[in-house]
């Protein structure tokens, strides 16, 4: 009983309390920095909004990685798929003047690379890491090449139409919340929906059960007469689709609506870290993604607080935090349990 209480406390009280303390300190510091109610609302709102904005590509890509890894296929090629998505989104928007077509094309392009990864790893039983590396290299080269072919420019493409942001009329006038949640890209809201849908699909549908079984215990799945290959294939392709969407968000929905050489800037790898830090579960990924997004924002935030300006000289250490935390998490401060049969190619047993 006592241990139960302890566990309950640890699980449900400590984290919120810590979060509350951190948030209170941050708000106090913010208020001191601006000393003006309206500015304070705006700045706090920005902190939340920027967290959401930087977290969205991470969460999307990490969710994709989750589908793949749950089915037993390691996908370190997320970075390449994102880059491909980012490029295709801009190219399609450029040709068709409609960013929604760009998003669709990006999703498909990511999925196409997902199919390549699936063929190599699932069908051909190739090495997952090697295939992922190949995808990253290929996407990096291919997108830069096509950048020059299509726009005859180096480094950065022409600007295209951006995906319009969603305005929620009644939210706008609420302080903090208005700045934070209004006027965001539709993909941000969609990401939250996707997290819930992913949880439902994975844990409440037969499809999810089979997908997880393909990663945890493929031979049982096979014994039940269900094709392991099929589910792994689907898992990898879904990961490509989501990574493509994440890329589209980076290029045409956030920041300058143009494609720049290597514009994903290692976000695919941070997404991988978020996946592990989030313990391969949809809500874990959501939490980890938001946390990493928050860290991303924090390094800029310190610049606005005069008392903390010295921290800017150490911003590399803030940037390092996601990576260090994952290493610490894996080293055993927190238990991370990857799917059991991950990275093990499944060979159907030969029936005599």
């Amino acid at each position, binding site marked *: 009983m006592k241990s139960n209480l302890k566990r309950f406390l640890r699980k449900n009280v400590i984290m919120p309390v810590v979060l509350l303390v951190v948030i209170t300190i941050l708000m106090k510091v913010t208020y001191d920095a601006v000393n003006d109610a309206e500015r304070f609302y705006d700045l706090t709102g920005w902190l939340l909004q920027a967290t959401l904005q930087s977290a969205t590509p991470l969460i999307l890509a990490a969710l994709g990685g989750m589908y793949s890894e749950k089915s037993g296929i*390691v996908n*370190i090629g997320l970075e390449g798929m994102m880059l491909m998505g980012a490029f295709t989104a801009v190219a399609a928007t450029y*040709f*068709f003047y409609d960013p929604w*077509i760009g998003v669709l094309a990006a999703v498909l392009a990511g999925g196409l690379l997902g199919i*390549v990864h699936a*063929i*190599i790893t699932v*069908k*051909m*039983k*190739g*090495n*997952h*890491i*090697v*295939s992922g*590396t*190949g*995808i*990253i*290299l*290929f*996407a*990096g*080269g*291919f997108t*830069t*090449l*096509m950048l*020059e*072919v299509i726009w005859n420019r*180096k480094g950065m493409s022409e600007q295209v139409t951006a995906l319009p942001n969603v305005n929620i009329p009644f939210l706008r006038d609420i302080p903090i919340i208005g700045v934070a949640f209004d006027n965001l890209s539709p993909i941000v809201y969609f990401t939250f929906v996707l997290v819930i849908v992913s949880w439902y699909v994975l844990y409440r549908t037969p499809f999810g059960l089979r997908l997880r079984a393909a990663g945890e215990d493929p031979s049982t799945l096979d014994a039940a007469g269900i094709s392991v290959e099929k589910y792994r294939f689907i898992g990898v392709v879904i990961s490509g689709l989501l990574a493509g969407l994440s890329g589209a968000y980076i290029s045409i929905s956030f920041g300058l609506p143009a494609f720049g050489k290597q514009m994903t800037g*290692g976000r695919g*790898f941070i997404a*991988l*870290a978020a996946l*592990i830090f989030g313990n391969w579960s949809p809500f874990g990924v959501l939490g980890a993604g938001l946390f990493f997004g928050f860290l991303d924002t924090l390094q800029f935030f310190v610049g606005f607080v005069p008392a903390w300006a010295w921290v800017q*000289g*150490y911003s*590399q*250490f803030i*940037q*390092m935090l996601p*990576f*260090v935390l*994952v*290493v610490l998490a*894996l*080293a*055993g401060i927190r238990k991370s349990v*990857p799917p059991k049969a991950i*990275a*093990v*190619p499944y060979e159907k047993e030969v029936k005599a």
Partner: protein
Amino acid sequence: MNEDSLQDIGNQSDEPQKGLISKLRADVEKIRIKMVDSVEDAPGPIKSIVLAISNLLTWIFWKPVIWALFSVLLAVITSAVIMELAGYNSYVAFSALIIGALRQFDRVLFFATPLIFTGLSVAFVFKSGLFNIGAEGQLYMGSMAAAILGYLIPLPYGIHPLVCLATGAIAGALWGWLPGLLRAYRGAHEVVTTMMLSYTAILFTQWLAAGPLKELGEFQWNAQTTRILETAELPTIWGNYLHAGFLIAIVCVFVVAFILDRTVMGYEMRAVGLNEAAAETAGINPKKNMAMSLAIGGGLAGLAGASEVQGTLHRFYNQWSPGLGFDGITVAVLGNNNPFGCLLAAIFFGFLRAGGNAMHQQAHVPIEMVGVMQGLVVLFVAAPRVIQWMADQSLDYGKWFSVEKARPIQPIAFALSMVIALYGAYFSFSLLGEAQLGLMFIGISAVTSVLGIVAFFLLFARNSRGIIISLIMSICWFALAVIGMGAGVDIGFMILVGLIQSVLAVFSLLLVKGVGKSKGGDA
């Protein structure tokens, strides 16, 4: 942990083979045995040389070589197609690349030098069943350590470079040892930890170079350390580029080969890599070996950084490496994780890099094409069964001709359909540039090109579903022609392609109906 699929090649050599290849292999084997027999009584040195050469004739040796060569070939073909689609002349590009690289062979070796080190690093770690994906971070730590020692401590000529190299290696080794320990004693997966530590190292060295170790001076504007002393520099040995680091890399190739094949440690590491549980039963400590292996791998990557700093950069620049650690993976993969294979693979990639500039200047193909080729090579090497599958299918396809000697119409019809499907895929892909014709047109073109590739492979596998897809493709052609009508596109050609394809498809379909369902072979 099972990432042995790369090693399959060495192990699966005795699987039974059929047909032409096996006959060829048997013949070669006969020659080899004859050779070995003929030198039975020859004096020692000659005998050992002949024995060594005779080993070249074994399938164990040739299979990975052929496999790698085929991957390169497929990658070259694919990138030629990409170049043509992008509107470049692939012939001019490749000849410029080859001639450009040959004319400046010192550049080739210069580019190969760090790749040899990082390739060895990845390959060595792989031998013990682990994957060192973070060679980049170890390289940064090594280069930083070498740069610090290079400018801080004055030492005499001769000793200084060696001390710097050693420090670089130790720094890299420590950075590799950490994930090794975590893997061995905490079970933290090394793919993830090395990758994360690699980013950590890049940021950490950036902080050092921009902060405490930044070079001072009125006109010093960048995040970089002070230039290393002249005593610490590695001399240039050939041309304008190649420095003595290359010689060290060659030495490392032999040392790594020696460690792996001739020492107890190497034997133990390989045993752990092949089967961890079995090795433990045999009294080998897998944990110690894993940590050790990652440490040595890290040391090799650290050497890469140190030799670059001492040989060419002469100081640490923030983010100086263009992904050398990452390229190490590709080198190890293409080199089949064999030290000598890594050497050749590194020279091959160095060749691409050195020739890339000539290709850019003469054929105006962007240098990124080299990256595309590199990625394709890796993708093809990653899937050993692709080549196996293609070899099997083409053998069976060839047999198909000989089986139906009297009536080879069906294979011929299939072959023609294959050609037209492939051409259709190419042609429709090139139509993607006609964006002004609207979404419908582009969409159908994209579908057609995908269908063409699918049809090609299905037909190649002698699967009758390929004909159906071929038929759908021809319908797409007519649809494209209808949409493109009056828009200035050459629709006559599309109709022609569509007609030929549909006639061929119907014809093949009739033939197949006569014979029955497809002849097996799943795609």
